[in-house]
């Protein structure tokens, strides 16, 4: 298959391949390498201490809490929306798709800003909230809302194209044969989209754990209280505790690598098109 490329000059392949590998080595491989090399610069003992000190544990716990709330909610939203968009023709569908995609295009800082404007001390509901002693901004609910906003398109974007491609013939047959709506969904639709759905969930999970900008705006950076893992990295780095910062960062890097491996695995399972990576 490669032999037919005699059309192009001989020097082209080495040149382009060399450029590609050098460019990706500088921008992708070195950052990966430096995270682990810095994290382990002072040995495994310091590494272990950095990721098990109380503030790090608190950050990991908060991050997991955020993931446990946002990922299931966005999964239900993604599946319901994909069903709506892939199975029905209705007015305003294009507009709805644009709205669903919007959080993906908005700057993370603006995603944080909008919740501060709603629930912050000078926000639209700020006075009412402080009267009733409810804290949203600079507290866990704000972090959850901002993460929910940022990750809301991920599952939907991943399975809408899959469901559209599969059409609705199979579902219509199931219904004609007497299956109920829910039976059709669980036994026909879900098995067809399971790999795409799984990947959407993995991607939401990675982004929910790693989100920085939006969470930084609403968190207030109260150490051990409102700091997720990326914010904990920022605090450590700001205090020149580089080894500790890179140690916590290495956990997030492992998460990113696992995400990439699973993506390749699922693409191999589906055996065809590339999945959306973002």
């Amino acid at each position: 298959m490669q032999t037919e490329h005699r059309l192009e000059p001989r020097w082209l392949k080495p040149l382009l391949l060399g450029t590609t590998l050098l460019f990706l080595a500088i921008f992708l491989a070195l950052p990966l390498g430096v995270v682990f090399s810095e994290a382990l610069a002072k040995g495994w003992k310091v590494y272990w201490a950095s990721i098990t000190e109380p503030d790090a544990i608190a950050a990991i716990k908060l991050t997991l809490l955020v993931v446990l709330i946002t990922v299931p909610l966005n999964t239900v939203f993604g599946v319901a929306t994909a069903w709506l968009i892939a199975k029905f023709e209705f007015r305003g569908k294009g507009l709805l798709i644009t709205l669903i995609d919007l959080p993906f295009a908005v700057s993370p800082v603006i995603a944080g800003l909008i919740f501060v404007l709603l629930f912050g001390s000078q926000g639209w509901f700020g006075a009412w909230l402080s009267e009733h002693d409810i804290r949203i901004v600079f507290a866990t609910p704000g972090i959850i809302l901002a993460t929910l906003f940022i990750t809301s398109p991920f599952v939907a974007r991943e399975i809408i194209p899959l469901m559209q491609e599969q059409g609705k013939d199979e579902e219509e047959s199931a219904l004609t044969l007497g299956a109920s709506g829910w039976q059709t969904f669980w036994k026909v639709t879900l098995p067809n989209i399971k790999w795409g759905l799984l990947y959407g969930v993995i991607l939401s999970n990675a982004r929910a754990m790693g989100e920085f900008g939006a969470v930084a705006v609403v968190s207030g950076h109260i150490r051990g209280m409102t700091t997720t893992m990326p914010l904990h990295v920022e605090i450590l780095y700001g205090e020149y505790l580089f080894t500790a910062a890179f140690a916590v960062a290495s956990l997030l890097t492992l998460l990113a690598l696992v995400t990439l491996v699973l993506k390749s695995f699922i693409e191999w399972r589906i055996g065809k098109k590339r999945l959306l990576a973002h």
Partner: protein
Amino acid sequence: MKWQLRKPSVLPGFGLTLGFSLTYVTLLVLIPLGGLLLYTTKLSWNEFGAVILDPRVLASFKLSFGASLIAAVINLFFGLIVAWTLSRYNFFGKKIVDALVDLPFALPTAVAGIALAAIFASNGWIGALLEPLGIQIAYSRAGVVVALVFIGLPFVVRTVQPVIEEFEKEFEEASTSLGASWWQTFSRVILPSLMPALLTGFALSFARALGEYGSIIFISSNMPFVSEIVPLIIVTKLSQFDYVGATAVGTVMLLATFVILFLINAIQIYSREKSL
């Protein structure tokens, strides 16, 4: 014909999913973004102008747009080369290299920021090589561009790669057998058909760069007038409880995002119509 919300279908669940989706999007996206636009109405045009035309804010807009543009151009060039290499050549470890291209999507931006800062600092792996040459990347404007190249890298590759993979080789062969040189074939046959994908990737990479915050603040010195990006201005204003100022700057950013989204849609509609 009677007006109808939807075409009839035997599948159930339209009302349920429509209601749920609309409620979710309204509460999570529409009301919060609307709240931002509504908050801007608290400002008169003069106040709005005073915030935006403040020299420090203007300098940050120049930096954000300029650095995003440079980074998107770098990604356009190298992204095309990477996409070409991955779709046309076989080499050892190709699968791993291909999977690694998505790293900037999967790696948290804060981690990318501290990693790049460590590499390009004057004592870092690359920074130490550049220092004798008098080139400083970390803690300068060049650092901002480096972070944005990392963040935007996959966009051009992933939009162009499928188009190169599906490109009919017959066109190239026809062009060559008609006597065109390789360069003529590339510039007159291949490049024009890649144009919509290249432009889309470029715009996506630019849009992402414009809003980026996490990776930049670690590698930039964040100095007002020199290396301070727009998102950082918003964060700074918020931390001083200057909601009005943050909103004014945020609104301009949001409008810029809408314009880019609109352009991306226009490119895609144009190229779809052309190919029909």
